[in-house]
């Protein structure tokens, strides 16, 4: 097939990716957008296969193994485990970039085309970005899944210097490859160093900062694909276009997540909480002021309520409480109580995590209200239920400029008539600070497992 036809089909695929991504930004067009993206991928694959005398055994074997793995993962995964899966798929994209760049370096050394400078630079960059993406994503997977790596940030003295040295080391070795392309061993050295860098970058991030990291790794996986586009000779437009689109969309999401925490990306990646620690002690905040309640009492409160807002957090995902919440929602709606959900942008472990869980539980998405829209109406809310959220409803963010979460936009549940906080204990959230909301005059604590407490409330409501 002539190169022109191949490139025109690649162009069509790139256009499908652009239109597909655009579709994904609106609820009504999202399904079609995703299908367009997959059509673009199929077109690009088919035309690549027709390209020139390729031998198909390994390609088909790879399709079968990878296709089966993809289908099984996509069909079997629980919605609560979605952050891990997204992290894992991200990593696979990065892994493919490492391998393609390595394969291309080998080919250039096997008497293929003479190695051009730009191909070599692209090979090094593919290796570095790919390895950071692959290992960073695997560590993110481990943290989210709760295997091998701890959820807490792992910190040690001089960690930033170590990371700078690793990045510098991989770049120096990269330059050596560019000067002497026959040093294939150095390529794997670059990959090894960048792998350590990827591990250290993500291991230093705490669980609640994961939305930022997952979005950033998403962006990296795109950049890795774009770099791989430059690796191929001639440079491959569909890789470059698709990769840079994903890189840009990941960066936008990363930015949204950072804004929702009032922190810079550098602060999330390198600072972290724990540096500023002079907020009020838990005893001062809570001493004798915390009032506990019971599911029966909560059920009685609902008798006089007409507007209820539920604020879900990561605790809802951990307790798998979304279906119990749906039962409560249906019951209250049947009694003419308006129920809405106020979702903080960084609630959970990835962008949009709560929305996915609530959608899984059949909550209509027009009941999921953005923070900025619900806050002005909070005073008219009879009961606000905080379910497994903490820092994102901590009024200290508004009141104490010295607090580690100062300036972070929060959901103003403290302004509701009555606040019910469903939580196992008074333990602090990720920021490590006490939450005065729990001791406020209009707050009641419902201590216990989120799912069990909601279920018991539903039972009490039905007995009325």
């Amino acid at each position, binding site marked *: 097939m002539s190169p022109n036809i191949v490139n025109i089909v690649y162009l069509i695929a790139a256009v499908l990716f652009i239109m597909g991504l655009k579709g994904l930004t609106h*609820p009504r067009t999202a399904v079609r957008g995703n299908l367009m993206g997959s059509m673009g991928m199929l077109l690009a694959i088919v035309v690549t296969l027709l390209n020139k005398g390729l031998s198909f055994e390994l390609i088909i074997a790879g399709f079968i193994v990878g296709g089966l793995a993809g289908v099984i993962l996509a*069909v079997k995964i629980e919605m609560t485990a979605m952050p891990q899966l997204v992290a894992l798929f991200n990593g696979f994209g990065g892994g493919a970039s490492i391998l393609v760049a390595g394969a291309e370096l080998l080919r250039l050394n096997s008497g293929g085309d003479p190695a051009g400078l730009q191909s070599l630079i692209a090979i090094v960059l593919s290796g570095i970005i790919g390895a950071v993406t692959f290992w960073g994503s695997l560590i993110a997977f481990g943290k989210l899944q709760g295997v091998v790596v701890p959820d807490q940030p792992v910190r040690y003295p001089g960690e930033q210097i170590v990371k700078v040295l690793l990045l510098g080391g991989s770049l120096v070795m990269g330059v050596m490859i560019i000067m002497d392309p026959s040093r294939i061993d150095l390529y794997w050295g670059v990959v090894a160093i960048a792998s350590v860098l990827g591990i250290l970058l993500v291991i230093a991030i705490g669980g609640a900062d994961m939305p930022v990291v997952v979005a950033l790794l998403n962006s990296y996986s795109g950049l890795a*694909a774009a770099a791989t586009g430059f690796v191929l000779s001639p440079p491959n437009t569909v890789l470059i276009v698709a990769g840079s689109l994903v890189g840009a969309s990941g960066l936008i999401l990363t930015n949204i997540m950072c804004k929702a925490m009032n922190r810079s990306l550098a602060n999330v990646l390198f600072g972290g909480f724990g540096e500023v620690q002079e907020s009020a002690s838990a005893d001062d905040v809570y001493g004798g002021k915390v009032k506990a309640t019971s599911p029966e009492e909560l059920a009685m409160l609902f008798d006089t309520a007409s507007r209820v807002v539920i604020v879900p957090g990561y605790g809802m995902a951990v307790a798998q409480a979304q279906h119990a919440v749906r039962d409560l929602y249906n019951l209250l709606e049947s009694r003419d109580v308006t129920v809405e959900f106020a979702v903080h942008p960084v609630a959970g472990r990835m962008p949009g995590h709560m929305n996915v869980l609530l959608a899984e539980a059949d909550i209509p998405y027009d009941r999921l209200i953005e923070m900025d829209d619900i806050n002005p109406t909070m005073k008219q809310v009879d009961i606000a239920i905080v379910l497994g959220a903490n820092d994102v409803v901590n009024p200290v963010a508004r009141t104490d400029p010295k607090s580690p979460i100062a300036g972070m936009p929060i959901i103003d549940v403290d302004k509701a008539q009555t606040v019910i906080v469903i939580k196992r204990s008074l333990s602090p959230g990720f920021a490590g600070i006490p939450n005065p909301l729990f001791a406020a005059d209009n707050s009641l604590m419902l201590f216990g497992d989120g799912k069990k407490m909601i279920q018991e409330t539903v039972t009490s409501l039905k007995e009325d």
Partner: protein
Amino acid sequence: MDFVAALTVFVLAIFVGFEIITKVPPTLHTPLMSGSNAISGITIVGAILSAGLSLNDGLAAYSIMGYSLTNILGFLAVVFATTNAVGGFMVTHRMLEMFKRKG
């Protein structure tokens, strides 16, 4: 295509990316991420080219069981990229169907 043309495409595509994804409703953050992630599986094109090269292209120096090392790395890359693309598009579709059924 020469390098400068490819670089031009790269820079322009980044701007296109920023332009088309301006306001994403938070409801769609996760599907947007997993859908765009699936698109980054486009590396499969490079993987196919590496996995399918024939030994006649001077690759015999590194051959194992009739396949060159380039082919084997390419095969692994096809596995990774296929998992990424197939799994990514499917799981995104699954999520979007959940959003759609009471839209």
